[in-house]
């Protein structure tokens, strides 16, 4: 670690003056924060892909969804309190009959606060993910375009002064417009306030190393710094508007740190030493392993990770319950690991929230177990839950009940803003839902 730090320090010093880097305050922030901060680190899990309330917070496993089935129980026993199903175990490893052991000895619900039923705004994945990150119902938000309103990443960086590498988004893939979520197209916010982003299933897939796994290393003083000086001159002769810029504003020091992280991830992917959840056999668990590595390396103020495998429910209910069980396993691993990260243990708040639910009634597709499948478009798809844990979150508290929603999806980002000191600025900006409020204000 000493070598890495030395290299970063040298490279940062070497390029000083070569590029126009933002002024770093002693705190490591780019600009002065505008509000008081009650949390040090926040991790937001978009427990996404469309999680039906009945099988998640409702803990009814097959009983509600599948005609003639009676097995009930809690699939998410790292997150929620309650006993798992005692029959029809189909969501585990191997042939599905071996449930994945719980990682957490005390479920997050007992450690924190569960909002048992929360109102979602949108029943399409991209719109719904945007509603989490923007804190509003993204009316007019199309696919394949950036969020139309500012995201929590941009609020944090613009109003909280957080550096680019202090704000991360880890996506499950590059499909579904996911890579567009790290900043909006809003003219007052946008790329210069965006989050760093990786999609580990692509970025760190072993096959990707053929293409980006063999970076040449340049000496920070005698090679890299002069190269950047020439680039800076070349750029000075080509005018671009702010909207044309395509860099997030990572300083040279931050970029070198990120490149070192990528190198180490490639090496550790090869050696099989990535801190993956113990039962990693899915895209979500793979992604979570690298999200954990981002936390360990950068100790960011804010990281958002998106999961999505449960969307298999469109045509395979069995795959859906397997994916949900693994997503819970991934969250358990995340929280367990956070408690071992120096600087993050004991002062990190976790928020888990699906972006939307799924329909009450099934579609016509039946899987190999004879289970019907579910899309997401009706009112039942607006029934979700939210789970919080952390040092300032009341323990063992459950608010709301089935059919009695407390809170809405926009409250997740406002809670992040609250914890990290930008809530007032977000409210004053006026782009969030008028009813959006911090979950802490509902407790």
């Amino acid at each position, binding site marked *: 670690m000493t070598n890495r730090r030395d290299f970063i320090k040298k490279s940062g010093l070497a390029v000083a003056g070569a590029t126009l880097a933002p002024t770093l305050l002693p705190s490591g922030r780019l600009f002065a924060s505008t509000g008081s901060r009650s949390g040090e680190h926040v991790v937001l899990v978009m427990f996404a892909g469309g999680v039906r309330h009945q099988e998640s917070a409702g803990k009814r496993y097959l009983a509600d969804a599948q005609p003639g089935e009676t097995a009930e129980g809690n699939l998410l026993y790292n997150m929620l309190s309650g006993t798992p199903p005692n029959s029809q175990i189909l969501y585990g490893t191997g042939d599905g009959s071996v449930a994945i052991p719980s990682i957490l000895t005390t479920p997050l619900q007992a450690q924190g606060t569960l909002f048992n039923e929360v109102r979602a705004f949108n029943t399409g994945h991209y719109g719904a993910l945007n509603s989490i990150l923007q804190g509003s119902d993204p009316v007019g938000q199309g696919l394949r375009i950036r969020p139309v309103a500012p995201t929590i990443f941009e609020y944090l960086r613009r109003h909280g002064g957080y550096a680019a590498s202090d704000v991360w988004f880890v996506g499950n893939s*590059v499909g579904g417009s996911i890579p567009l979520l790290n900043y909006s197209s809003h003219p007052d916010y946008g790329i210069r306030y*965006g989050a760093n982003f990786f999609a580990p299933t*692509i*970025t760190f897939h072993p096959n990707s190393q053929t293409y*980006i796994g063999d970076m*040449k290393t*340049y000496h920070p003083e005698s090679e890299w710094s002069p190269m950047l000086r*020439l680039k800076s001159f070349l750029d000075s002769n080509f005018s671009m508007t702010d909207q044309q810029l395509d860099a997030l504003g990572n300083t040279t020091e931050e*970029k070198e740190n990120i490149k070192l992280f*990528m190198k180490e991830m490639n090496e550790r992917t090869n050696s099989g030493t990535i801190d993956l959840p113990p039962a990693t056999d899915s895209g979500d668990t793979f992604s979570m392993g690298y999200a954990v590595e981002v936390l360990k390396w950068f100790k960011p103020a804010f990281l958002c990770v998106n999961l999505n495998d449960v969307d298999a429910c469109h045509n395979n209910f069995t795959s859906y319950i397997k994916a949900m069980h693994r997503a819970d396993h991934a969250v358990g691993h995340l929280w367990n690991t956070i408690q071992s990260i120096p600087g993050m243990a004991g002062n990190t708040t976790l928020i888990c929230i699906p972006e939307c639910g799924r329909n009450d009634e099934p579609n016509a597709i039946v899987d190999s177990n004879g289970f019907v499948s579910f899309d997401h478009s009706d009112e039942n798809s607006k029934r979700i839950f939210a789970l919080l844990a952390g040092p300032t979150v009341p323990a063992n508290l459950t608010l709301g009940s089935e059919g009695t929603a407390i809170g809405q999806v926009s409250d997740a980002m406002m809670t992040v803003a609250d914890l990290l000191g930008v809530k007032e600025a977000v409210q004053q900006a006026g782009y969030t839902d008028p009813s959006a409020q911090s979950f802490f204000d509902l407790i």
Partner: protein
Amino acid sequence: MNMQELTPNTFSPKATAFAAAAAAALLQACRKSDDVFELETPLLYADNSSKTKLKTNEQFINILYTGLFQTAPTEDYLSALSTILTSIGDQLLAREVVIANFFNTPDVQLPSMEEMRGNVGAFVEETYKNFYLRLPGAAEKAWVTQFIESQPEYTPELVYFAFALSNEYLYY
């Protein structure tokens, strides 16, 4: 390609190949599968003011790869690498990573130190034509020439890196 006030071609044979390959690569990245294009002597921009269109990741990779390796990448390679680029949020950083990988490949075709040092002014002109498809302005040529001449250890690879990473190279 959107070029205005075309300048007479003054490419050296090597630069012609480089720039023609780059132009062809850009066309290939945009073409429908049944189109047939032939290489023509590339035309030069009068200046950079008409470069307003951002290259896609595929175009960026295709043009750079073709220029550096004197051969076009396969479609699979192009598709895979552009997808990887998409998976990295900071696109400037992503391009640094890609270029640093290209320069760690033994097949990369770079001018030698002797070629560059033998006539730095001519090297600068060729590099502007290769990467920007235009001649440098007088002030540009003077600055870059002096910059290279003042640093004996500065290699053609670093010059190419700076051009490949520059903002103008992202536009056409």
